[in-house]
C-alpha cells in the first residue's frame, strides 16, 4: 500500500497512525455537526475513537507530559466548579481545556481531547480539567493518573442509573487506592463518607468544608444519605449541619469525627454565586488552587477576590435570562440535595433588601415554574421529588406553574404539601413558559426550577435557539 509521504509519518507506530486518523476523523465530525447544527460534537467523536482504540485517552495524554490533569467528581457542582477553576486558571495566564458540559463520560473526555489536540496528539495546553460523573470516575482513573482530583460530594442521584450511594463510595475508594502518590486529592471534609475515604488513602489528601457558623441546621434533614458511621456502623451525630448529610459530624461510639477542614473563614472571600452549595464549590476550587500557588499561580487573595467577582455562572446554574423584560432566573434542580439547595437559595435571594416582590398579588413574592422530566439524563424514576421539601417555595410563591414529562406527579407532590395553593399544570412546556411570563410583570422576578433535560428545553424556549 502506498501512502503519500509526509515527514510526520516517519517513526510513527501503528497506534500513533491510528490516533492520527481518529483525531482527524473526530475533528471532521465536530465540523460537520457544527455546520449542520446537529449538536456540538461533544460525545460522538470520542465515542468512535474509543471503539477503534480503547486506549485512545491514555495514548494521547501520555504524549503530553507537561499537561497537568485535574479531575473533578461529585454528584452536584461539577460543572460550576470546573468552570470556576478554568476561569481562575485562565485569569492567571494559563491555557486550559475541559470536557464540555454534560459530556462527563469517557466519550466526552475523549471528544474534548480530539477537539483540543492537533492531529499529532499534541495538546498545547497547561491544564486539562475533566469533570467525571459518579459512575465514570473509576473508569477514567484506570486510564489516567491525574495530578489532582477534587471530590465535591456524594448525594443520591438517579438511583436507577448510578446505583446506590454506598456502592459508589466503595468503588471510588478502590479506584483512588490504585493511584500513585503523585496524585493529590482534595475532598469534602464535611461529608462523613468522603472524609472516611480520604482517611484510607496513602496519597496527600486535603479537606475543604464550610465554617460552622454557616451550618444552620440542628437536625438531620430527610434527604440524607450517609448518616451511619463508616467505621463502626453506629448512627452518626452532628453538632450542626449545612445541608443533606454535610456538617460537623461525630460518632458517639468510636473516635470517628470531622477533622480539620479548610473553610477560608480567616479571609473574606467574594463568593460569586448564592447558596451554601456554592460556598462549598468555591472553597473546593480555592483549596485546589492554593496547592498551585507559588508553583504555577502567583496570586494573592486580593486578586483572586477580584477575579471571583468577575465570574459569571454557567448556563442553567443560577443563570439570569431577560425574556420579554422579565428577569427569569434558572436554577438547575436535578436531585433531592440539589433541589433543596435551590429552594434555600431562592429564599436567600427573596430575603435580600434589594429584592422587588410581585406587585399584583400580595400573597406571594415571586412566581415559579417547576419542570419535572424523566428522560435518560434526568433518571427515569421520579420518586425522589418526595424527598424534596417544597414548603419554603409554596410559602413565598405567588403563582406556581408546573410542567414536564411527569407534570402530574409533580402536581400531586405539591398538592400533598399544601392543597390550598393553586397550582396550574401544563402538558406543553412552551405554554407553561408563556403563561407564567404573562403572569409576571415587566421587571419582576420569575424563578424556573427544572431538571436537567428540562433546563435545556426551557433555555431553548427563552433564547430561541439551542445554546450550550
Amino acid at each position: 500500500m502506498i501512502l503519500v509521504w509526509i515527514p510526520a509519518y516517519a517513526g510513527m507506530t501503528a497506534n500513533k497512525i491510528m490516533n492520527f486518523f481518529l483525531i482527524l476523523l473526530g475533528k471532521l465530525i465536530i465540523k460537520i455537526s457544527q455546520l449542520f447544527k446537529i449538536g456540538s460534537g461533544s460525545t460522538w467523536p470520542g465515542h468512535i475513537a474509543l471503539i477503534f482504540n480503547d486506549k485512545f485517552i491514555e495514548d494521547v495524554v501520555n504524549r503530553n507530559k507537561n499537561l497537568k490533569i485535574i479531575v473533578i467528581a461529585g454528584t452536584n457542582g461539577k460543572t460550576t466548579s470546573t468552570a470556576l477553576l478554568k476561569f481562575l486558571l485562565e485569569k492567571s495566564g494559563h491555557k486550559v481545556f475541559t470536557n464540555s458540559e454534560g459530556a462527563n463520560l469517557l466519550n466526552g473526555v475523549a471528544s474534548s481531547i480530539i477537539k483540543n489536540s492537533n492531529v499529532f496528539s499534541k495538546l498545547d495546553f497547561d491544564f486539562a480539567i475533566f469533570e467525571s460523573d459518579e459512575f465514570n470516575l473509576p473508569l477514567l482513573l484506570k486510564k489516567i493518573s491525574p495530578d489532582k482530583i477534587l471530590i465535591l460530594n456524594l448525594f443520591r442521584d438517579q438511583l436507577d442509573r448510578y446505583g446506590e450511594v454506598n456502592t459508589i463510595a466503595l468503588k471510588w475508594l478502590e479506584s483512588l487506592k490504585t493511584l500513585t502518590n503523585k496524585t493529590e486529592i482534595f475532598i469534602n471534609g464535611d461529608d462523613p463518607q468522603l472524609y472516611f475515604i480520604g482517611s484510607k488513602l496513602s496519597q496527600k489528601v486535603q479537606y475543604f468544608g464550610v465554617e460552622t457558623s454557616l451550618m444552620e441546621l440542628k437536625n438531620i434533614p430527610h434527604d440524607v444519605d450517609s448518616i451511619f458511621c463508616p467505621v463502626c456502623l453506629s448512627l452518626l451525630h452532628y453538632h450542626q449541619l449545612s445541608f443533606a448529610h454535610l456538617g460537623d459530624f461525630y460518632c458517639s461510639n468510636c473516635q470517628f469525627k470531622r477533622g480539620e477542614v479548610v473553610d477560608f473563614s480567616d479571609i473574606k472571600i467574594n463568593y460569586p454565586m448564592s447558596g451554601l452549595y456554592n460556598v462549598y464549590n468555591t472553597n473546593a476550587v480555592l483549596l485546589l488552587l492554593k496547592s498551585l500557588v507559588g508553583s504555577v499561580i502567583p496570586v494573592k487573595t486580593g486578586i483572586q477576590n477580584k477575579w471571583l467577582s468577575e465570574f459569571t455562572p454557567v448556563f442553567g446554574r443560577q443563570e439570569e435570562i431577560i425574556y420579554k423584560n422579565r428577569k427569569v432566573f434558572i436554577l438547575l434542580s436535578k436531585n433531592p440535595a440539589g433541589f433543596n439547595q435551590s429552594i434555600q437559595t431562592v429564599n436567600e435571594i427573596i430575603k435580600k433588601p434589594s429584592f422587588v416582590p410581585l406587585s399584583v398579588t400580595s400573597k406571594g413574592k415571586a412566581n415559579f415554574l417547576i419542570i419535572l422530566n424523566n428522560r435518560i439524563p434526568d433518571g427515569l424514576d421520579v420518586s425522589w421529588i418526595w424527598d424534596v421539601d417544597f414548603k419554603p417555595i409554596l410559602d413565598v410563591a405567588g403563582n406556581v406553574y408546573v410542567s414536564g414529562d411527569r407534570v402530574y406527579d409533580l402536581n400531586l407532590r405539591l398538592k400533598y404539601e399544601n392543597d390550598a395553593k393553586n397550582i396550574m399544570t401544563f402538558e406543553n412546556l412552551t405554554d407553561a413558559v408563556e403563561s407564567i411570563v404573562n403572569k409576571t410583570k415587566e421587571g419582576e422576578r420569575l424563578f424556573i426550577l427544572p431538571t436537567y433535560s428540562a433546563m435545556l428545553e426551557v433555555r431553548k424556549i427563552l433564547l430561541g435557539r439551542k445554546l450550550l
Partner: protein
Amino acid sequence: MNINIGWLYPDLMNTYGDRGNIIALSYRLSKMGIKSIVNKISVNELASLIPKMDIIFMGGAQDKQQEIVNKDLKIKGKYLKTVIENGMPGLYVCGAYQFLGKYYKEADGNIINGIGAFDLYTESPGLNVPRCIGNIVIESKLFPGVKLVGFENHGGRTYLANKNLAFAKVIKGYGNNGEDLTEGIFYKNSFGTYLHGPILPKNPELADYLIEKAIERKYGKDIKLGRINNQWEEKARSWVMDKL
C-alpha cells in the same frame, strides 16, 4: 379519632422517596378529619412502641444501612412479627419487604436471616445479572378494575411459598422475581411490595385500605369515612400509564 403511624427506620430505610408514603397517609387522614401522629421508630427508640401503633410503614434502603437495621431487628423483629400476625395494617417496601421474609441469600451464597413474618425468601441472582429496574404496572384482586403503578429497583428475586398470597399480578415489569408474574405479598392486613414511586400517593386505593383497616381495628366497623376526590391522583396515574 387519631391514628398512630409507626415509621420504622426513617433515617436508614428511606432511599427512594418512600417518605411520600407517610406524607400520603397523613394527608389523607387529615382530609378524613382524623388526626395522624407520625412516630419515628429507629435504632434509638424502644421496640415496645411498635404494638402501640395503628399503621406501620417501613421503606427500602441501601446495603450498608440494611446491615445496621438487620442488627437492630434482632429485637424489634419479634415485636413486628407479632403485630403483623395480629393484623396490624402495614406497608413494607423493597428492602423492608425482603427483611420480613425468611431469608436473603446473597450472591456468594451467604444467608441473611429475615424475621420470618412472611413465608417467602429472596435470592440474589448473582452479581452479573441486571437489577429489576423500571416502571411497573400491577393488578390486585383487592382493588378490582384498577391498575396500580409504581417504579421498581431491586436486585433480589423474591419467591412466595404460597403464590395465592401475592398482593398483585404483574401487568408490566418484574415484580417479585420476573418469572411467575406475582408482585408482593398480602398477609393479614400487611402488604409487602417492590413498588416505589412512592406507591401510596398515586395509588390512593391502597392508602385508604390501610387507613380503613386501622380505623376498623381501633374504633370498630361502624365508622363511615369521608370520601376524597382523587382526580389528581388518578390523573398522575393514568398519565404515567399512557406513556408506558
